[in-house]
C-alpha cells in the first residue's frame, strides 16, 4: 500500500488539528475516522480552562495553574504552546465567521439549561451572549423544537422569553440539523427575523438556539440583526451541535483542499507493531481488510464515547495498540457516590500516559512505540469536563504531537 507521512486516527478536534498542522508542514496525511467525531456532539465554543476567573489574564492564570498541575497535558507545552496552537486554530476561521475571546480571558456565556458557562474563544455568532444582562435580553424558543427549551433558559436567566410558532414552516419535531438547513435559506431567516421583531419590547439582545445555519452563519446573524435592530446570539444546546458541525466541515474542506485524504465510517481494528514501532494499521471495510502504512501515527481516538479507551467489568483498556491505561484500582473506585460532587469522578483522570513528546510510555516511563503519539482527550491526568478544557486540550496536544512527530 501507499506510504503516508502521517496517519491520524480520530476525527475529533484533536485529530483534525493534528492533520491540519501536518498538511501545513507539507506532509502527506491520511485521516481515519469512525464517524464525525465529538465536535458534532458538543463542539460550540473553544474552552481552554474554565477555572480561570472571567476577565483574569489567561497567560498568567494558565501558567499558575500548570505549576500546581504538573502532570496535566497543558504542562507539556505551557501557555506559549497553547496560545500558539490556538492562534493557528483561529487562522483557519477568517472573517466573517471568526473565533475570538471577549477581552483577554474567559467570559461567561448562557447555555440551554439557563446557566452561564465559562469559555475562552467564541464564534462570532455567540459573542453577544457574553455581554448579556437579564434586563436587555429576549430569549427566543421555537415551539416544537424540543432540544432547546426557551422557557427553561429564560426563567433561569430571569429574562423575558417567548416561544415562537412558525406554522408555515411546520417546525414540530424538526431536528437541529433540519432547522439549520432551513436557516441557510433566505426566506426562512427573514420570516424568523420578522416574527422576533414583533415580539420585542425594547430588548437590545436576542438569544436563539444554536442553529443559525451551516453554510453562512455570519450572514444569518447579520440578517437577523438588521431586521430586529438588536444584537443576536446563539445559545449552545443538547447534541447534535450545529456550531461544532461547522468546525468539522471547515477542517475537512481545508484538509481536502490541501491534499489530505479522508476515510470516514470504518473502524481501525488492528495495528502491526514490530520492535517498538507501528508498521501499519488495519482498517475494516467489509468484505476487505486494508492495511495502511505511514512513517508516523497520531492516536486521537478520544475517551469512552469515541472508543479510544473502553471498559469491561474489571479494567479499562486501549483497544488498538493495547497501551497501558492509567486507572483507579477497581471498578468500585471509578465513580463517586454522588453525581455532583466537588471532586471529579476518579475515572475522568484515567488515560494514556506519555513522555514530553506525547509518546505513550509504560509504567517505568519508557517509550512504547517510537512513531506513535497520543493527542486529545485520550490522555491521562486531565478532567476536561469539570475543567472546561476539552477543546483546549484537543487543539494544544494535536498541534504539539504533530510538531514533534514531524521534527523527528
Amino acid at each position: 500500500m501507499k506510504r503516508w507521512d502521517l496517519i491520524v486516527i480520530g476525527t475529533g478536534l484533536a485529530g483534525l488539528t493534528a492533520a491540519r498542522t501536518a498538511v501545513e508542514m507539507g506532509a502527506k496525511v491520511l485521516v481515519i475516522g469512525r464517524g464525525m467525531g465529538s465536535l458534532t456532539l458538543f463542539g460550540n465554543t473553544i474552552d481552554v480552562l474554565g477555572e480561570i476567573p472571567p476577565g483574569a489574564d489567561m497567560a498568567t492564570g494558565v501558567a499558575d495553574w500548570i505549576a500546581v498541575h504538573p502532570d496535566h497535558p497543558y504542562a507539556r507545552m505551557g501557555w506559549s504552546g497553547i496560545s500558539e496552537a490556538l492562534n493557528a486554530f483561529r487562522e483557519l476561521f477568517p472573517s466573517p465567521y471568526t473565533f475570538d475571546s471577549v477581552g483577554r480571558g474567559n467570559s461567561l456565556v448562557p447555555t440551554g439549561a439557563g446557566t452561564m458557562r465559562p469559555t475562552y474563544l467564541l464564534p462570532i455568532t455567540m459573542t453577544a451572549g457574553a455581554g448579556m444582562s437579564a434586563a436587555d435580553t429576549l430569549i427566543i424558543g421555537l415551539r416544537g423544537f424540543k432540544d432547546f427549551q426557551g422557557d427553561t433558559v429564560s426563567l433561569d436567566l430571569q429574562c423575558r422569553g417567548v416561544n415562537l410558532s412558525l406554522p408555515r414552516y411546520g417546525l414540530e419535531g424538526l431536528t437541529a440539523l433540519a432547522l439549520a438547513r432551513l436557516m441557510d435559506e433566505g426566506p426562512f431567516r427573514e420570516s424568523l427575523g420578522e416574527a422576533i421583531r414583533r415580539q420585542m419590547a425594547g430588548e437590545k439582545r436576542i438569544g436563539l438556539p444554536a442553529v443559525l445555519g451551516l453554510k453562512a452563519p455570519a450572514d444569518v446573524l447579520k440578517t437577523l440583526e438588521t431586521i430586529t435592530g438588536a444584537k443576536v446570539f446563539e445559545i449552545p444546546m443538547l447534541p447534535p451541535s450545529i456550531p461544532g458541525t461547522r468546525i468539522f466541515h471547515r477542517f475537512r474542506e481545508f484538509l481536502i483542499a490541501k491534499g489530505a485524504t479522508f476515510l470516514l465510517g470504518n473502524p481501525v481494528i488492528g495495528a502491526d507493531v514490530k520492535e517498538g514501532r507501528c508498521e501499519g494499521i488495519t482498517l475494516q471495510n467489509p468484505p476487505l481488510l486494508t492495511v495502511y502504512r505511514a512513517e508516523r501515527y497520531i492516536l486521537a481516538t478520544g475517551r469512552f464515547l469515541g472508543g479510544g479507551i473502553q471498559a469491561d467489568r474489571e479494567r479499562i483498556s486501549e483497544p488498538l495498540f493495547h497501551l497501558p491505561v492509567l486507572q483507579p484500582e477497581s471498578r468500585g473506585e471509578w465513580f463517586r457516590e454522588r453525581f455532583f460532587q466537588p471532586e471529579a469522578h476518579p475515572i475522568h483522570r484515567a488515560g494514556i500516559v506519555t513522555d514530553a513528546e506525547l509518546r505513550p510510555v509504560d509504567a517505568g516511563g519508557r517509550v512504547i512505540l517510537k512513531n506513535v503519539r497520543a493527542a486529545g482527550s485520550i490522555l491521562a491526568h486531565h478532567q476536561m469536563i469539570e475543567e472546561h478544557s476539552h477543546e483546549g486540550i484537543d487543539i494544544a496536544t494535536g498541534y504539539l504531537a504533530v510538531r514533534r512527530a514531524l521534527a523527528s
Partner: protein
Amino acid sequence: MDLQTEVLIIGGGATGAGISRDLALRGIPSLLVEKDDFTSGASGRNQGLLHSGARYAVTDPEAARECITENRILRRIAPHCIEDTGGLFVSLPEDGHEYRANFIRACGVAGIDTEPLSAREALSMEPKLSPLMIGAVQVPDGAIDPFTLVVENARDAESRGARFLLHTEVTGLIREGLRISGARVKDRITGEEFTIAASQVINATGAWANEILSLAGLSIGIALSKGSMLITNTRLSERVINRCRPPASGDIIVPNDTVSILGTTSLRAEDLENHAVTPEEVSFLVDELSRMIPAIKGERFTRAYAGVRPLVQTAQAGDDREISRGFALIDHQSRDGLEGLITITGGKLITYRLMAEKTADFICARMGLHVPCLTHLQPLPGAGRGHTFQDRLLRLRHQIPAFRRELLCDCELVPREAVDAILREGKVRELQDILHRTRLAKGTCQGGFCVYRLLGVLNERRKEEGLGGSNRILKGFLEERWKGIRPVLWGTSLKEEELIESIYKGLFNLTPEEAATADGGHP
C-alpha cells in the same frame, strides 16, 4: 385543614391501593396517605413478575396455590396490566433431572399447569437460551406492570368516593386511651401539618411497618431483605426464564415491555431509604444469569435498582393472626391491647388483592357489616386498553397525523400530549410523579435527553403561573438517576455516561448545589 374518614390507610403501594378499592366497592369510605408517590416502595421496586406460583411449588405449596389463584384472577380483572408471556423453568446440566421431576409433580399438586419441553423445543422457542440446557418446563408465568395496576386500583376507588393524599407523611398516631383514633400528617411539599380522624387505621406500609408502629410504641417481627435487579437495554426473551432448581439468588429473567429485568439478590437491608446496588451484586447477577442466557455477558445494562422485601418472621407470629406464610394481618387490639389499628405486611405483589380482601373482611367484621368482596369479579376500569410498545406505536400511528408530533422521548414514544394530559389532571406534584406515569426516562438514555425536554414543558407552565425556574429540579433528577446508573457503568453504558456528563457538567455547567450559589454567573 383537619380531615375525617372512616378508614385511614397508610401506604400507597399495591396493598394500600388494593384495600382502598376493596373498601370502596363495599361502600366503606376511606382515605389513603402516602409519603411519596404510588408504588414508591417495594411495589415499584420488584421484577414485575406475574407469578404462576411454580417457583414456590416445591418449597411452599400453600404460597404456590395462593399465587396461581391470584394469577388467574388478575388475568381477568387487569388484562391491560399484564403481558401473557408464559414462563420456562430451565434445567442446566448441574441442576439435574431429579429436581425437575419433583418440580413438575409439585406444580401438579398446587394446580399449576406445566408442559415439559425438550432442550431442542425450548431452544426453538427461546433461541438465546444456553445450548447446554437439558430441558425446560413451561408454566403460566407472565409480566405485570405494577404502576398501572396500582394507579388503576386507586383511580377506580376514587371514582367510588375514596380519597388519596400523596406526598403526605404520617408524623404521629392520635391515641385516646387504649384506642388509635387517627393520625397527624405532614404535606412534604408545602410543609403543612394537619390531622386525620378515623375509626380504623390500617398500616399498609410494607417494609416501613415498624416505622409507623413505633409511633404507637409497638413493633412486630419483620426482617428486611434487599433484592437487587438489573435492567437490560434489549429484551432477551419472549418468556419469563427461571432456573429449575431450589429458589436461590440470580435465578430469574423477566421480560418487561422492550427490556428484560434480571434478578435477584437477597441481602439483609440496613437502611430503608437508601439501598445502593453494589458492584459485587451486579457481577453476581451477570455471571449467574449468563449461565442460562450467555448473551447477558455482552449485554448493555441501563440501570440497577433494589427493593426491600418485608419478610414476616413466623417464629414470632405465635400470637399474630397469621393468615398465610406469605403475609400477615395483625390486629393490634388482640395482640397489644390497642384498638383501631391493624397492620398488613409481608406478601408479594401477586397477592396484593388477596391481602386487601382479607384486610377489608377484617374491617367489615369489626364494623359489624356483611358486605362481600367484589375485587375478584369486577375488572379494573382500564381493562381492554393495551399498554405495550406496540400498542403505543399503533395509537401514535392512528390518532395523530405523522410527522406533526412533538415526541418528548423518541425511544419510548412518549408524546408531549401525554405529559400535558397528566398535568391537566392537576394531581402530580413532582418531576418524579410524571416519570412514574409515563415511560419517560425508562429508555436507553435513562432520561438524559427527555427530562431536559420535560423540564421545558414544566417551565412553560411555571412561566404562565408567574413562577421562577430552577435547575435544582434537573440536578435532583440527575442525582436520582445516578443511583441506578452508577452500578452498571462499563461497556456501552459508560460511553453514554460520558455523553451525559459532557452535556450536563460540561456544556450546561451544572455544578454541585453547594457551589452553585458561588458561580457568579447569573446576571
